């Protein structure tokens, strides 16, 4: 690689490069500054994430391919990066107060999250099995550590260990699958693979069995990362065990990045073989929606409930992917963006659930919230209605945008099951609304909730509630993302 192309490549990956350098810089600042290290590191991390966001949005124009085609820039990637960076920044902002109060304030925390985000950006832009894996592992390793960040509690350590073991297993499966794909095609580049498979499909040949088995293993590994059933087992335990601010992060940014990666892999190199992976995606989607809806009913811990809820939402997002069309990808992009908004808002509320200086996590602790904290109850009710997919909240439109393409693609069974599971899911979302509005108040939560948390709750609630007034920008952006993706993938 000569200097000129290296420069072009570095500029093409400018947001990632910037964020990685910022991460190292913040690490240094943290090591060498004293008592205020964590606060400074947190502020700098938020600034770095926002900076990367600005670079994605307004930075210099970036080449489409970089680093010998290992790295790709397109509208889809940009859209997903914006969502990831926004989600990461917001989750960091809402955890300021939490990590201080819970004595988790070590400066490594934001640094690890920044590195995880670098990994996510790499995943989103991966155009090669190798760069995909590197990005994925960078993300995962950072997340393994933060899951067990509170080493002094058994639950957190156990969560981290479980996550690590199952994560390593899934990485192994994915690598095995990749090696099969590589062995049968002789390349790891998405571009070459796509051409290869498209040619094979055009010639009327069948996909090689080896590559097909490889695909199955890769999808299994990816399913773990988006916590789709049956690779979801880690989710409830980790969500419950990890510190709440970490859970909020887990539920938002990595989900989006992993979903982007799934779309990238399946629609990119394997785009010509939609009918081969469609059944897998349909199965995983149905299983996730069913489990997400049914298992959540009996939960008493709000973090576990959110874990099942996130599993269900992944199932809905996969409905759009199962369609395998441009409209379907647009649906996935919209769904993930709306999902992130609802999730961050909900977790901001959960982070406020403190009684007498202690965090509480029981769903019953929300009883009568409408009387003790009317505004927070209103916001949480909006999020719950939205997650249940009840119009006119944003969540309803997210569902519309994924179900329409699925119906257009003739996946009626998928759409019907999706609709039925959302009815069951209504049960537990609305139960929370019922608890807040109909039941007699339990002990109120501690005040003040913190300005930054309040602002995030209010902002996300307003966006979720009034999405229907001006859905244009998000929908257009997602449409452009899907369009650009199809244009690049051919």
């Amino acid at each position, binding site marked *: 690689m000569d200097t000129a192309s290296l420069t072009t490549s570095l500029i093409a990956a400018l947001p990632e490069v910037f964020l990685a350098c910022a991460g190292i810089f913040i690490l240094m600042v943290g090591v060498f500054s004293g008592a205020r290290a964590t606060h400074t590191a947190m502020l700098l991390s938020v600034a770095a994430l926002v900076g990367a966001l600005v670079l994605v949005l307004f930075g210099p124009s970036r080449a489409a391919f970089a680093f010998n085609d290992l790295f790709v820039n397109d509208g889809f990637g940009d859209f997903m990066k914006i969502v990831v960076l926004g989600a990461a920044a917001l989750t960091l902002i809402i955890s300021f107060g939490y990590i201080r109060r819970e004595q988790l304030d070590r400066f490594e925390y934001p640094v690890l999250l920044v590195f995880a985000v670098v990994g996510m950006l790499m995943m989103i832009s991966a155009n090669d099995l190798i760069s995909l894996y590197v990005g994925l592992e960078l993300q995962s390793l950072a997340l393994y550590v933060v899951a067990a960040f509170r080493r002094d509690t058994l639950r957190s350590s156990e969560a981290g260990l479980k996550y690590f073991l199952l994560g390593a297993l899934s990485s192994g499966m994915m690598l095995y699958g990749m090696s099969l794909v590589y062995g049968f095609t002789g390349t790891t580049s998405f571009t070459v693979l796509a051409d290869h498979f498209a040619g094979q499909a055009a010639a009327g040949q069948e996909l090689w069995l080896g590559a097909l088995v490889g695909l199955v293993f890769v999808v299994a590994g990816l399913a773990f990362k988006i916590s789709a059933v049956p690779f979801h087992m880690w989710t409830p335990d980790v969500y419950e065990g990890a510190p709440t601010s970490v859970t909020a992060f887990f539920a938002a940014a990595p989900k989006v990045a992993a979903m982007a990666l799934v779309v990238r892999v399946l629609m990119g190199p394997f785009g010509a073989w939609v009918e081969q992976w469609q059944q897998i995606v349909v199965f995983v989607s149905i299983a996730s929606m069913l489990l997400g809806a049914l298992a959540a*009913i009996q939960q008493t811990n709000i973090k576990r409930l959110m874990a099942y809820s996130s599993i269900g939402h992944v199932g809905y997002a996969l409905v759009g992917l199962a369609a395998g069309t441009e409209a379907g990808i647009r649906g996935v992009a919209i769904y993930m963006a709306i999902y992130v908004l609802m999730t961050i808002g909900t977790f901001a509320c959960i982070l406020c659930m403190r009684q007498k200086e202690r965090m509480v996590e029981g769903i019953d602790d929300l009883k009568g919230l409408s009387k003790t904290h009317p505004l927070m109850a209103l916001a949480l009710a909006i999020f719950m209605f939205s997650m249940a997919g009840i119009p006119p909240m944003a969540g309803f439109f997210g569902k519309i945008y994924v179900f329409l393409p699925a119906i257009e693609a003739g996946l009626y069974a998928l759409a019907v099951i999706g609709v039925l599971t959302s009815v069951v899911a209504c049960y537990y979302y609305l139960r929370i609304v019922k608890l807040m509005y109909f039941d007699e108040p339990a002990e109120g939560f501690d005040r003040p909730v913190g300005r930054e948390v309040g602002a995030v709750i209010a902002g996300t609630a307003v966006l979720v509630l009034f999405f229907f007034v001006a859905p244009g920008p998000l929908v257009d952006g997602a449409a452009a993302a899907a369009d650009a993706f199809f244009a690049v993938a051919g």
Partner: protein
Amino acid sequence: MAAAGKADARVPTYARAVVLLPAALFVWFSTMIPAVSGGAVLTWEIAWLPQLGIAFGFIVDGLSLLFALLITGIGTFILLYASEYMRGYPQVDRFTLFLVAFMLSMLGLVLSDNLIVLFVFWELTTITSFLLIGYTHEDAAARRSALQGLFVTAAGGLAMLAGFILLGQAAGTYSLREILADPGGLVGHPDYLVILILILCGAFTKSAQFPFHFWLPNAMAAPTPVSAYLHSATMVKAGVFLLARLTPVLGDTEVWMATLTIFGAVTTVYASAIALTRTDLKQVLAYTTVMALGACVMFLGAPTRAEAGEPSIGLIAAVTFVFVHALYKAALFMVAGNIDHEAGTRELPQLGGLRRLMPLSFFAAALAAFSMAGVPPFVGFVGKELLYKGALAWPAEPYVAVAAIVAAKIMMVTAALLVAVVPFFGSAEKLPKRAHEAPWTMWIGPVVLGVVALLGGMLPDLTAEMLLLPAAAAVMGYQPDYEVKLWHGVNIPLLLSVFTVVTGALIFWKRAVLLDALRSAVQRLPLTGDRAYDAVMTWIADLAAWQTRWLQGGVQRRYILVVFVTLGLSVAVTLVARDAVVLPAAFPEASFVEWSVAALIVAATFVTLIADSRLLAICALGVVGAGVALIFLLFGAPDVAMTQLLVETLVVVIVAIVLLKLPDFRGERRPTARGRWRDGLVAGLVGVSTTLVLLAVTAEPPQQAITDYFEETSMPGGFGRNIVNVILVDFRALDTLGEIAVVAVAGVAAYALIMLRPRRRTRPDTAGRPDRKGAAS
């Protein structure tokens, strides 16, 4: 219930002032009557989701205007009534807000032009209904009913959404106006049946058709103004409205007619029979509401044109009956509320003698009951004549329709007598408290509605021309040429009418015997919707509990088990689906040494499984690895064998060191015999499917490009025969350098960590509990 209200509490001003909103809307809609009855269709529209072709549009035609007038007109009286009825209840502001929100959503529902917008309003009425039923939330029954109503109607609503989307796809537009402008295009569409079933799910759940009817009587836990408004006059009619709205595009087919007739007929007969078995005034009214909805649905199943091009009397009857029923049922509910409020009970056996105590309520109840029983000259009579006429004009087998409607109507007469006679005559001794007439705000509504029912019957042609025929025109898709009259002369419908009233009165007279028999018969019904609902709910909860207990019990071994089961199955399914299963030869050719190594591996695996100590298990596992290394060696890959052996040794050593730190098996739950079988089965599944994959994959010619490339270039390019070595130090030299660097950095870090440990031990204050401040301090 009445106890909750405090008589001396002030009625808030806003509760009275808000009445002006529906009143103003009513007047506004009334001004549209001349234009709409002339056949005009008024529309408004703003763009909303242009990417999906969804616009926010409203349309006013005969059908939606009839509903809009009912919603705003009855809404005016209900809000007035509620302001008094809810006096002294907690959070009246919230109640009023919900009620107004419901009214506006219901208006939106009937006026929407776009299917998606219609659905949004449809669900909004469901939510507001949920909030209103659960209003008395300290009552467990109310909470359950609220949730039940929500589930049943929301489930149906979502099915309906799927139907709407399919309908929109099939028609190419989501605008009702455009869909209705081109009727007939959908009936032959391949998705017609699916669309129909999904939309019927929505309509039947909302309008409480058998077998989904059970939520409606339970919804009577709501305060009476809500029952009168939502659960009899307006919201439950939404399903009927939707069916009427879509009749021009979906109707007139065999399945449409058969389904609507059968479900409607069963509902109407079943519900009217149940109505007679109830003793709670509101329950009686609730079941007669279900009966009326069944009749509406049944008559919407009539063909849009009778024989010889005559207008369809069935459809005119359906529309008329919606109007008639809304008037008398709202009035009766409000009277029932008055009785409950003033006399302290709604139980028929306790009630009596209120005629003198509550004369105005009695007057209103009598008017409404006459209309309900279908006595001339009330509008109910007009409606009933039309029903009979429509049933007689049924295309095939009119007897079924006639029998159903006559049976239902007979029981309706009895029910009307139960409601209007029992509480007002007889003795007032059993009343729990001294009753007196309700305040004017509570009797004005029923009286006005009763008078309207009377006037509507006396001036049938005016009512028909202003309201009913334009609405029927919208349902039929053409202007009907029909004259509605009170007196048609002596004909079969009139004879049927006389028969109905007389029989109904006879049953009422002999009610002590007959109704008891009916009650005991009903109690023997094996499966009711309510019980089925409970069974489903329990089943779902049990499933969730099982999932949490078994799958998500926090046991890592089980998690891994699930992952491996899935993996094994998906690989096996892939193989079978591709028909690529390659069975190995029965006795592959192999030397003695090879067989021995294989036997060694199998034996070591077995030892791993049955080992009693961890150390033995890990050693046996090491032997398995060593055996694999031997196989590599035998097949001419010494470098790979070398690596394998090294890694294997390292793993055994490291794991053994870790194990020394762990407690032994004691105190840990040992797997049971069944558990071992299960694990063995899963392991076998994964092992066999992976082996089959290997066999199948190697049976196909792999891509040779990589191997060829390295074989050709390793000697000239890297001057080495060992391809693996050449790759490591020549082709991928930079990567190897990177790897070495990473290993070195990791080593330094490990060293730093190890050196850190003793220093932390020396701090006694943090030795016991782990460091909280961490590196920052």
